[in-house]
């Protein structure tokens, strides 16, 4: 007689009352609401006229896209949008290139002082941005970088976090891949570019998303280093809506809603990589 097969405990438990799961779902729901509510209010406010801004209703009484036309027809907004895009894209490309180059070197080459360099890079993570702003400004002032694109970008062109992230990922690339390429006659730069980089695509995507978002929403440093309105980034420009005359919340929210579009595009394009990237980053600890 054939032995009787019973379902595993996991299968048996499916559909059964599980208090732990209910608590988890409730917490997740609360967390989700906390994060989504401001976004919904932002969108809602962008569809209201100035008289309805303070009624705090989520669904506007007479929604209209007038604010969007107003913002988009204002040449300044487009200029700030382009500024932010240029800066965020340039800094992202720079980070992807330099962080991975340094991370690869620290992960895959044995040389004297390697550990010291790595610790020195890591230690910069512990210095708060607020402490660095004054030296950055002095540097920018000395070299004539104040109120220039380069002045906004230079502190973030390479980051300790990105270098650390890429080093951790490159360590997971088996040496045999690189050695096989070495035997096949490739030089070290080509090995990095043609062999190692495609193998860490999830990490590169994660780094690209983090860097892009960080720079797209950057406010503090661009505010300090820029003087002319033509060089404002989008967050700095939007904040000027608040100080020019009366606070125009509907315009700020419209601008902010438009500002989320590039981040959504970046996220949608790279999300399948970022999930893997974040998971792997977690595993590598």
């Amino acid at each position, binding site marked *: 007689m054939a032995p009787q097969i019973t379902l595993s405990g996991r299968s048996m438990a499916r559909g059964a009352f599980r208090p732990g799961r209910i608590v988890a779902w409730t917490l997740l729901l609360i967390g989700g609401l906390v994060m989504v509510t401001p976004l919904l209010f932002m969108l809602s406010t962008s569809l209201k006229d100035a008289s309805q801004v303070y009624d705090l209703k989520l669904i506007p009484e007479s929604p209209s896209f007038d604010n969007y036309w107003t913002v988009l027809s204002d040449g300044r907004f487009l200029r700030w949008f382009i500024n932010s895009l240029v800066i965020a894209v340039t800094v992202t490309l720079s980070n992807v290139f330099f962080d991975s180059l340094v991370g690869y070197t620290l992960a895959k080459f044995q040389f004297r002082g390697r550990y010291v360099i790595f610790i020195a890079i890591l230690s910069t993570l512990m210095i708060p941005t607020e402490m660095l702003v004054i030296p950055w400004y002095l540097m920018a002032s000395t070299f004539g970088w104040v109120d220039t694109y380069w002045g906004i970008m230079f502190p973030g062109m390479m980051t300790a976090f990105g270098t650390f992230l890429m080093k951790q990922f490159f360590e997971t690339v*088996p040496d*045999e*891949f690189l*050695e*096989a*390429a*070495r*035997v*096949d*006659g*490739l030089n070290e730069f*080509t090995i990095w570019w*043609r*062999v190692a980089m*495609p*193998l860490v*695509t999830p990490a590169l995507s994660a780094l690209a998303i983090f860097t892009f978002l960080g720079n797209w929403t950057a406010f503090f440093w661009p505010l300090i280093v820029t003087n002319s309105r033509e060089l404002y980034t989008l967050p700095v420009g939007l904040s000027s809506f608040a100080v020019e005359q009366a606070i125009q919340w509907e315009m700020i929210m419209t601008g902010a809603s438009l500002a989320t579009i590039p981040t959504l595009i970046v996220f949608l394009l790279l999300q399948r990589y970022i999930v893997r990237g974040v998971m792997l980053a977690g595993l590598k600890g």
Partner: protein
Amino acid sequence: MATIALDGLVKRYGKTPVVHGIDLHVKDGEFVVLVGPSGCGKSTTLRMIAGLEDISGGTVSIDGHVVNEFEPKDRNIAMVFQNYAIYPHMSVGQNIGFGLYTSKLSETDKKKRIAETAQMLGLEALLDRRPAQLSGGQRQRVAIGRAMVRNPVAFLFDEPLSNLDAQLRAQMRIEIKKLHQRLGTTIVFVTHDQVEAMTMADRIVVMRDGHILQVGTPMELYDNPTDIFTARFIGSPTMNLLPATIRDEGGARTAILKSGRLSLPVPADAAVSHGADVLVGVRPHDLVVDEAEAGQTFVLTGEVSVVEPLGAETLVHLDLGGTPAIATAPGRAIPRAGDSVTVRAPAGSLYLFDAKTERALCRM
């Protein structure tokens, strides 16, 4: 094709030596297998030939030129790695073609070379596939293809079959051997599997603890091992070793087995003296479960502990007076665990080893 010569080759990590001045000359077109347990220095030796490890002492020469200071790319050798090292982001065709990345051939010639290589390895239909869509054997063939496409003077294989299942491993052994017969290129192949070494090599190099113990053809090593390690490493199942003591009575020397009190005559030329501890070696295929025949000296009785029927024969695990041993029972005569059986070995099939130095003393 090329000769490869290692002269006094040394590798140290810090102050710890891992390869102790080995000498080896690989002939043009020869298939040499470096075999030994993990940590014996065989892969390190291969990597020094490839140029992937710095050389701490001695020389590596390819075709008579010392290449110690040459970069891997300047040695014109190709290497196949244990985990294949084929790039997951490239198709089979791109992987094979990657070997020609630095070649000055025209694109047309490169494509032609890739197609020829793929055809030789039966990969024509898979050229557009990604490695993830291939079986282990196909991946291994792609790795070999990438190595072949450059027409290198020598191939280096670093345990290339160890990730494959037993059936595929046997198949790939034959394919690599056929490939060698067709191309005639010099091959240095590293493995810890003595079956791979025996079945593929023109010559086997047995390594242990960074030293070469013995170099020879598979049958030379099987028939005349110079020490216990080689004797037990080559051949499957491993050679039985039965402890014994030498007794010299009026010039007539005998080895008295501790298990079974059997007395075996020792040849006069064996460099061993009275009272010395020795080990008598007998291969499981020479130790047959059968009734003793008249005139045979090596006859023992033992209790069966486990039997392993293999079809054509059965491996019989025995207890010979406290010493475990493996014998073979021919055909379908399968004893049962607990049975008391007689085993015998023909004259000339025994080996005598010094128990202290572990060196071979003579055949008996």
